[in-house]
């Protein structure tokens, strides 16, 4: 017995796979002769091909941004609140493309794919990637789909970095750039969190220098700890307090050390770590966090973000969230200030939300309204 899918969703969706056979030279100098990208689309591409919107996912995201894969799915895609008929990204107007990035582990070519030359999984031999490599691969996917210019490229967090890179690498192929809870580059503290997560993975005895698949195992506990570290930084202190406080899941304070006390928050984090490590690839996690760390929008523009943005031709919408301490409002203000200095069209909303970095995925009326109003002004003719 299944319940009908919510009417405001895009309904059932089926991922597709594009085999891209034009060799792609990566920022690290190595070349992928061919690669696969798995993607989903929602809505219909118009005759002029001018209503396409690209969704760029964040660290642990994938191509499944909206709708359901089966009628018994417990949860819809990761951005279902904002993509669908009548939603901020209105699939009645836009043709939405969402992919799993190169190096991912949800079907696109990545470290767990088979390396053609050896016939075994790439593992640690998979090339290191930069955000710009994703952008170039996304441009090839656009070619494949017959999309010459995106009406908008949209992303939160690491996805926002891809959207900004699009504006610089392909200024003629993007009309609007939507950057949510992102940054021009990571802070030292941010890199530190990522490195701690990577060390958790690499110090797992089952990691085998990244070649765990060849050993028929995987660093489950290391990846779980990595996810726990990440998860702490995506939530605000306030939300953790509200959600768990100091409530106990088992044990009691009275009995002391003989009977170990387990806090609700411990149990929650372990559950998050466990479920994540069952479905995500450790090498992809390392690769994606490295791409995050290396990203520096203005490095090749004399470290001047305004100079970088002068290349852009598109309009910008930037949003940040009041309690986000992983990508705090100051990082978004830096983006906005650089855009103003470059005399670009930009609107910026600072959204009041208690939910930390995760807020960009969650329902919020003001966020939804500003996002919706901005998208509504984008012409699709």
């Amino acid at each position, binding site marked *: 017995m299944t319940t009908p899918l919510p009417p405001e969703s895009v309904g059932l969706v089926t991922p597709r796979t594009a085999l891209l056979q034009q060799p792609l030279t990566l920022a690290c100098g190595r070349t992928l002769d061919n690669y696969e990208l798995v993607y989903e689309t929602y809505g219909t591409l118009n005759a002029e091909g001018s209503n396409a919107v690209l969704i760029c996912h964040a660290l642990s995201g994938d191509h499944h941004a909206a709708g359901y894969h089966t009628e018994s799915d417990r949860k819809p895609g990761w951005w279902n609140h904002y993509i669908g008929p009548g939603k901020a990204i209105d699939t009645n107007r836009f043709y939405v493309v969402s992919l799993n990035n190169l190096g991912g582990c949800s079907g696109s070519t990545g470290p767990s794919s088979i390396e053609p030359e050896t016939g075994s999984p790439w593992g640690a031999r998979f090339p290191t990637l930069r955000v710009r490599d994703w952008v170039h691969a996304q441009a090839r996917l656009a070619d494949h789909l017959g999309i010459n210019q995106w009406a908008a490229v949209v992303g939160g967090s690491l996805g926002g970095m891809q959207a900004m890179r699009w504006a610089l690498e392909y200024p003629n192929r993007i009309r609007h750039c939507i950057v949510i809870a992102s940054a021009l580059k990571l802070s030292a503290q941010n890199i530190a969190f990522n490195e701690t997560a990577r060390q958790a993975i690499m110090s797992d005895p089952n990691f085998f220098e990244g070649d765990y698949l060849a050993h028929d195992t995987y660093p489950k506990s290391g990846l779980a700890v990595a996810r726990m570290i990440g998860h702490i930084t995506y939530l605000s202190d306030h939300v953790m307090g509200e959600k768990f406080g100091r409530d106990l899941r088992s044990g009691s304070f009275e009995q002391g050390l003989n009977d170990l006390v387990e806090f609700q928050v411990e149990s929650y984090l372990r559950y998050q770590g466990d479920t994540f490590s069952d479905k995500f690839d450790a090498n992809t996690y390392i690769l994606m966090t490295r791409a995050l760390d290396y990203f520096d929008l203005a490095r090749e523009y004399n470290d001047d973000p305004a100079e970088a943005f002068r290349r852009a031709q598109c309009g910008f*919408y930037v949003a940040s969230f009041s309690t986000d301490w992983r990508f705090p409002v100051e990082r978004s*203000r830096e983006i*906005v*200030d650089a855009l*103003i*200095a470059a*005399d670009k*069209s*930009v*609107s*910026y*909303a*600072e959204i*009041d939300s208690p939910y930390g970095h995760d807020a960009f995925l969650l329902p919020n009326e*003001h966020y939804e*309204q*500003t996002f919706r*109003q*901005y998208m*509504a*002004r984008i012409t699709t003719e």
Partner: protein
Amino acid sequence: MRIDFNHLQQWIGEGSRVLDLGCGDGTLLKYLRDSKQVNGYGLEIDPGQIEACIGLGVNVINQNLDRGLGNFADKSFDTVLMTQALQTMYFPHKVLDEMLRVGKECIITFPNFGHYKARFHLAFRGRMPVSDLLPYEWYNTPNIHFCTFKDFEVLCHEKHINVLNRQVVNERTSQFLGNLNPNLFGETAIYHLSK
């Protein structure tokens, strides 16, 4: 169109770059964009007003003016505007300094607390003025730093600010009397400044 918008637009050049502090729903910037090809940004903190600006296609930046304009370069705008918001600032004199630093010229409009209705209210009723012009009670008013036209003139003089133009506009009472004795009968002042 608010009456002060109508008057101040004469001092804004075609195609100029404008910063509108406390831009509200973006009506003025949209009007200037459509009629004079002006480009620029509005600064606003009210969530509903920010949504309205985006809905009009006006560039709006979520920014608290009391935090200053430190993120804007010197003389990076042709005109910095502030309509009916000076009296809501914590430090109006500092905001004025910042406007004159960032803009080559500034246009400010504000209500006259020396208007005879306000004076009567205080003088004869002994209560803080509440009227159709100033509809708030003392405890809930966003207007925390009222001044009269004379007060503002004194501030400009002390700061060596050039008053390029000044105008008085009356919507509810006699424009003739407003011109005759602005500080007593003027409702709204529009100042065009530079430094």
